[in-house]
C-alpha cells in the first residue's frame, strides 16, 4: 500500500512537470499560424463610406466599379462581394487557368457558394432549348398521355368474345365464398 501511494505521488509529479513544460512552449490563445492571412486580408464589416468600399474592392482584387457587397440585412455576409451565380461549367474550358480543374485563377475573388458551383455539383449552364419551350413540350406530351389513358379507361378495348366460363358456380368456394351459405347458381351451356 505504501509502494502504491508512492508510485501514485511520483506519477502525479511527472504529469505536473510535463504539463508545465507544455504550457511554457504553447502559443497564447488567439494566436494564428504563420500560414494564415493577416487581419487586413480577412473579410470585414459591411462598407459604409466610399473609402471603405474602395479598400474592400482592393482587398478582394476587384475593380471598384465591379465590387458589390451583399445587402446588409443581418445574414452576416459583411463586405464579401456578391458575384454572379454562375457555376464553373460556364467558364471557358480551353482557357489556360491557373487551376484547370477548378477553372479558377490565383487571387480571383471566389463566390460565397463556390463549393456548390464546382464542376461535380450544381450546373447553371444554359439549356440548348429555351426553358419555356422545354416546359411547353413536356406539358403537351404529359397531357396527351394522360388524356389517352383516360380515354382508354372510359372506352376500353376488348375482343368480340364473351367472358370466360368457370365451373363450380364461378369457383364460388375457391374464391373465398362462405361454405355454409347457398352459392348463387351459375350454369354454363355448350354452344
Amino acid at each position, binding site marked *: 500500500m505504501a509502494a502504491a501511494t508512492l508510485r501514485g505521488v511520483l506519477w502525479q509529479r511527472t504529469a505536473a512537470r510535463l504539463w508545465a513544460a507544455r504550457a511554457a512552449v504553447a502559443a497564447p490563445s488567439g494566436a494564428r499560424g504563420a500560414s494564415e492571412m493577416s487581419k487586413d486580408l480577412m473579410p470585414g464589416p459591411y462598407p459604409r463610406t466610399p473609402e471603405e468600399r474602395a479598400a474592400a474592392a482592393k482587398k478582394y482584387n476587384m475593380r471598384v466599379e465591379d465590387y458589390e457587397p451583399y445587402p446588409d440585412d443581418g445574414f452576416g455576409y459583411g463586405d464579401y462581394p456578391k458575384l454572379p451565380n454562375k457555376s464553373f461549367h460556364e467558364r471557358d474550358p480551353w482557357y489556360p487557368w491557373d487551376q484547370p480543374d477548378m477553372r479558377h485563377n490565383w487571387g480571383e475573388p471566389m463566390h460565397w457558394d463556390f463549393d456548390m458551383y464546382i464542376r461535380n455539383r450544381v450546373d447553371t449552364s444554359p439549356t440548348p432549348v429555351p426553358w419555356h419551350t422545354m416546359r411547353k413540350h413536356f406539358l403537351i406530351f404529359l397531357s396527351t398521355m394522360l388524356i389517352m389513358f383516360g380515354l382508354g379507361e372510359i*372506352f376500353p*378495348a*376488348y*375482343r*368480340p*368474345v*364473351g*367472358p*370466360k*366460363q*368457370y*365451373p*363450380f358456380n364461378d*369457383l364460388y*368456394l*375457391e*374464391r373465398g365464398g362462405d361454405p355454409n351459405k347457398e352459392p348463387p347458381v351459375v*350454369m*354454363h*351451356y*355448350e*354452344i
Partner: protein
Amino acid sequence: MGAHLARRYLGDAETEPDPLQMPTFPAELGLPDRRPRAMVATARQLAEGQVPLEQRDFCAHHLLRLLRCHRDAFPVPWQCRDLRHAWDACQHHDYVMRMKEFERERRLLQRQKRLRRREEAAAAATAQ
C-alpha cells in the same frame, strides 16, 4: 378487330353486346336442347393439384394430366407434346365457344331491336 368497338362507341350501342354484362338473355332462348357443359376434373383434384384459379376452367383435366407429365418427365421438355396439344385444342374450342356466345348475344339484341321497331310502327299505325 375494331369493327365491334366502332359500332359500340361511335355507332349503335343498342345492338352491340357489353362483355361485362353478358349474358342478358335466357340460355334456352332459340336453343331448346342445350346441354350444360361437363366438368371432368373435380374441385378436390384441382385444389390438391394447386392449379391457379384462372386455370380452373372446363379444360382443367387436360392441364392436370399435363402437369403430371411435366413432373414425371423432368428435365426432358419434349415428352409432353401430345398432352400439351390436347390442352391447347380444348382452350381453342373454349375460345370459339366464347365467340359464338358473343355472336348469339349480338343477334338476339338485333332481333330485340327489330321487334321493338315493329311494335312501335304498329302502335303508330293504329294511333293514326
